[in-house]
């Protein structure tokens, strides 16, 4: 195959505010048959904007200008449809187009969250069945779909744990979190009122029982483990750790954001996990949207079910209902029931694939990650080389450092070859980490080309490091000065100031 990055025409675009002209009309609504009443006849003037308020330069542009503006902006972006996007831990896989059509069916899209249940049976059934399937896939006893993303799922799960102990009058203040954990884990624990006790992963990149035992005591409410973890490794001691924790009365939280490697292969609920969250916008293929929306369902063991957020979706005979009568519930996480349209996409994904399909997905995700691992480990330092790695593998920039080339440099250089860089500098336990998650939707040719490219970057690092250190060269902007953004904050356009180009 001959896919290959080149440079071509792009058009830079001013800010939309600079495309504005006074009185230029966009899409104007009409009064229709209802007479216009001057606002001041209805609302005292002190509450109103003055009629000639220019709203600080709020734009006035034509419909065509809007379309061209955002079309051009889009053309500066890289998406999964543009090319390979091995952003570790983010599971950037193909987003099925049919799910987009389904999510836009009027029966879903135009449904108001406050409508009476008799009018929303289809939506409630969908959510109920999705929760059932997620419970089966993860092996958990109950599931809420309300969290809007993984991090809110963590908060939800941890609040449930806190509520569980509170109801029992048990005071446990600590949550143990390995150093490989995603930053949301400690942040969520903090918001949930816990103190965080970090623990180091063992020499094999996974948590050992002994290191847990070192910090485990009765004050520990939970351990938050990520499985597979952010090194792409399966936490093989999870069951022993959970057992030890349970003995001390603690609960096991598992960050299931990396579920993509496990479907039909291993179930977190079968290994002593009490609470998990999963990311529908990763494993279940709903698109990331340049930063969301996501959805972070939380599964719990039966004993924790009473604490899940309200409302819950329940089945009564043949009909479905929203039930808020859970006195022990942690309450609400948002105004309504979470990111419903993301759930629609996730459920469509599950129904399209079925059990064999989901298993094939996870198998392929693992195969592809291991192919990358095998293909690159000769040239890149692989600090934790375990067979198999799961959904991803994490390399270090140690060898390239010898030539003055860092992970950041190589990440930028990959852009020149038409690839999105991997996740970099995370997890922090690996020096200059490059976290590569190919996912299952990529073809073998793509993996081969990527491996070849990485190797040629390794060659470049030795032979012409400057080309890497000055990368990227093919993008519409060169390497960006991120430090300056914080040093000289400019977080919005303002009217009088002339923008420098």
């Amino acid at each position, binding site marked *: 195959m001959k896919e290959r990055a080149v440079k071509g025409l792009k058009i830079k675009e001013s*800010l939309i505010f600079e495309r504005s002209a006074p009185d230029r009309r*966009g*899409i104007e609504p009409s009064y*229709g048959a*209802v*007479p216009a*009443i001057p606002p001041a006849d209805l609302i005292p003037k002190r*509450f*109103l904007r003055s009629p000639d308020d220019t709203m600080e330069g709020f*734009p006035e542009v034509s419909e065509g200008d*809007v379309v061209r503006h955002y079309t051009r*902006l*889009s053309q*500066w*972006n890289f998406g999964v449809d543009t090319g390979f996007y091995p952003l570790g831990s983010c599971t950037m896989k193909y987003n099925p187009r049919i799910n987009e059509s389904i999510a836009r069916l009027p*029966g*879903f899209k135009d*449904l108001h969250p*406050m409508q009476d249940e008799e009018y*929303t049976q*289809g939506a409630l*059934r*969908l959510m109920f069945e999705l929760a059932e399937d997620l419970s089966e896939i993860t092996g958990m006893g109950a599931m809420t779909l309300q969290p809007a993303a993984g*991090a809110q799922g963590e*908060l939800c799960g941890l609040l449930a744990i806190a509520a569980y102990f509170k109801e029992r009058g048990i005071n446990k203040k600590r949550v143990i979190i390995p150093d490989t954990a995603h*930053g*949301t884990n400690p*942040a969520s624990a903090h*918001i949930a*009122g816990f103190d965080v006790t970090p623990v180091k992963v063992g020499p094999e990149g996974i948590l050992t029982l002994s290191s847990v035992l070192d910090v485990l005591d009765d004050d520990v409410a939970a351990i938050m483990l990520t499985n597979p973890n952010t090194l792409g490794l399966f936490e093989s001691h999870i*069951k022993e750790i959970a057992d030890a924790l349970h003995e001390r009365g603690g609960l096991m939280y598992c960050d299931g954001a990396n579920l993509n490697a496990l479907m*039909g*292969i*291993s179930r977190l609920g079968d290994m002593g996990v009490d609470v998990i969250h999963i990311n529908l*916008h990763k494993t279940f293929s709903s698109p990331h949207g*340049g*930063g969301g*929306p996501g959805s972070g369902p939380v599964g719990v063991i039966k004993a924790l079910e009473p604490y899940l957020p309200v409302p819950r979706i329940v089945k009564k005979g043949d009909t479905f209902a929203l039930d808020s009568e859970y006195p022990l519930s942690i*309450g609400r*996480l*948002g*105004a*309504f*029931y979470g990111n*419903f*349209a993301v759930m629609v996409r996730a459920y*469509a994904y599950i129904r*399209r694939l079925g059990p064999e399909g989901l298993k094939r997905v996870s198998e*392929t995700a693992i*195969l*592809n990650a291991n*192919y990358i691992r095998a293909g690159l480990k000769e040239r890149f330092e692989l600090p934790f080389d375990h067979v*198999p790695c799961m959904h991803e593998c994490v390399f270090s920039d140690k060898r390239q450092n010898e030539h003055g080339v860092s992970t950041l440099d190589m990440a930028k250089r990959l852009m020149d070859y038409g690839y*999105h860089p991997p996740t970099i500098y995370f997890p922090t336990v690996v020096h200059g980490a490059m976290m590569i998650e190919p996912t299952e939707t990529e073809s*073998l040719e793509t993996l081969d080309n990527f491996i070849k490219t990485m190797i040629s970057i390794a060659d470049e690092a030795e032979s012409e490091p400057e080309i890497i250190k000055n990368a990227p060269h093919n993008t519409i*902007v*060169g390497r960006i000065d991120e430090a300056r953004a*914080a040093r000289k904050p*400019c977080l919005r*356009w303002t009217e009088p100031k002339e923008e420098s180009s």
Partner: protein
Amino acid sequence: MPYAPLTDKEREKILTRIGVTDFAALLEGLPRWLRFNGDLKIRPGMSEQDLLGHFKDLAGSNRALDSIVSFLGAGAYNHYIPATVDSLISRSEFFTSYTPYQPEISQGTLQAVFEYQTLIAQLTAMDISNASLYDGASAAAEAAAMAVRVTKRRGVLLSGALHPAYRQTIRTYLQASHDKIQEVPFCTETGATAVEGVRSAITDETACLVVGHPNFFGSIEELEELSGILHERGILLIVAVTEPLSLALLKPPGACGADIVVGEGQSFGNSLNYGGPYFGFMAIREKHLRQMPGRVVGKTRDSEGRSAYCLTFATREQHIRRERATSNICTNQGLATLAAGIYLTSLGRSGLKKLARINLSRAAYLKKKLESVCGVRPAFSAPTFNEFAVKLPVEANKVLCALRKKGFIGGLALGKYYEGLPDSILLCVTEMNSRADMDSFSAALKEMLKELG
């Protein structure tokens, strides 16, 4: 297999390269007792065609607002969405990309967010906006938590006229940190927050007051008066806007002394979607920047001095600060804010202002119409935007149920949220409600009330 294209032959090739004989051998590195050997008990897969058919059936067993006359609002608003919005958010460079961690190939998302931040700041008349939070309710919770950090006080006052789900969400978020949350009553006459109630609830430990604006009853709040009272004591005024279209008509909260403005952005180009995804917006004063939760995009330069954008102030965020972060939020509601940006610029200043006036005029039309129905009267006296409450002569639920049978969703019964308002309903009127719909609705109500009482 759909979505996992490796052929059997290619699997073989990969297994060989890895150096194992088959997939089972590869899995031997996983403890046997932690593997799942059964078959997942979920329904079998289906073809794309059958899938679409199945979901059409599911969607068809809902009755959505495309096929019924509805006056529901209460935090989610049925607005017309210009075709530009879906067309442009469907550009796959937008919707299949991740959070723009790598700015050089994400300038599109980054500039769009920068513009979004500006639009929100303009609408609210605040200094700075973040890149979004999950929804209006969680944004209100984040704002309260932020006020606690800024003021280093732990008392949070909630207006009783703030959307009930917002109050609940704030409690959920803050319950664990033992902040003291107290509700202040609303004035049963005006339907606005009782100013005296606020005054008497204030203590030295009060960090903030959160009010809806317009509030849950649609009532416009006396923000300037409230901020005056609060600022005297160093307390922050948090204004929560569930219907942001009001910002185009009403004096912006930033001009009324608000310290943090949060709200629900759904009205701006996002479908009702049975409750989500929507997006929470947050606009603040510049001085509080370092306490702001969520992502923010800033302008900077590239290696050759060309202007460019990137995520910035990440040191507030979880991936750097971990447990000391200003929030745990990571994935936010990017695409929903993109929709908002496209929506707002498609209408433009004059379009948005006009739309707000249309909403106001139509709501006033229905309000007046209903007031002429025997036994119906306004529940409150404060001015309103596109949402208002009326008091019926009989129990609200009974009326709404009967109206549903006639093909109307007649608003929301307030009794579920306020014991004292069993006879009141909350109605919302937008540009999606035609005069004919309103006329036939009020006629139906009239007839029904005659029958019922």
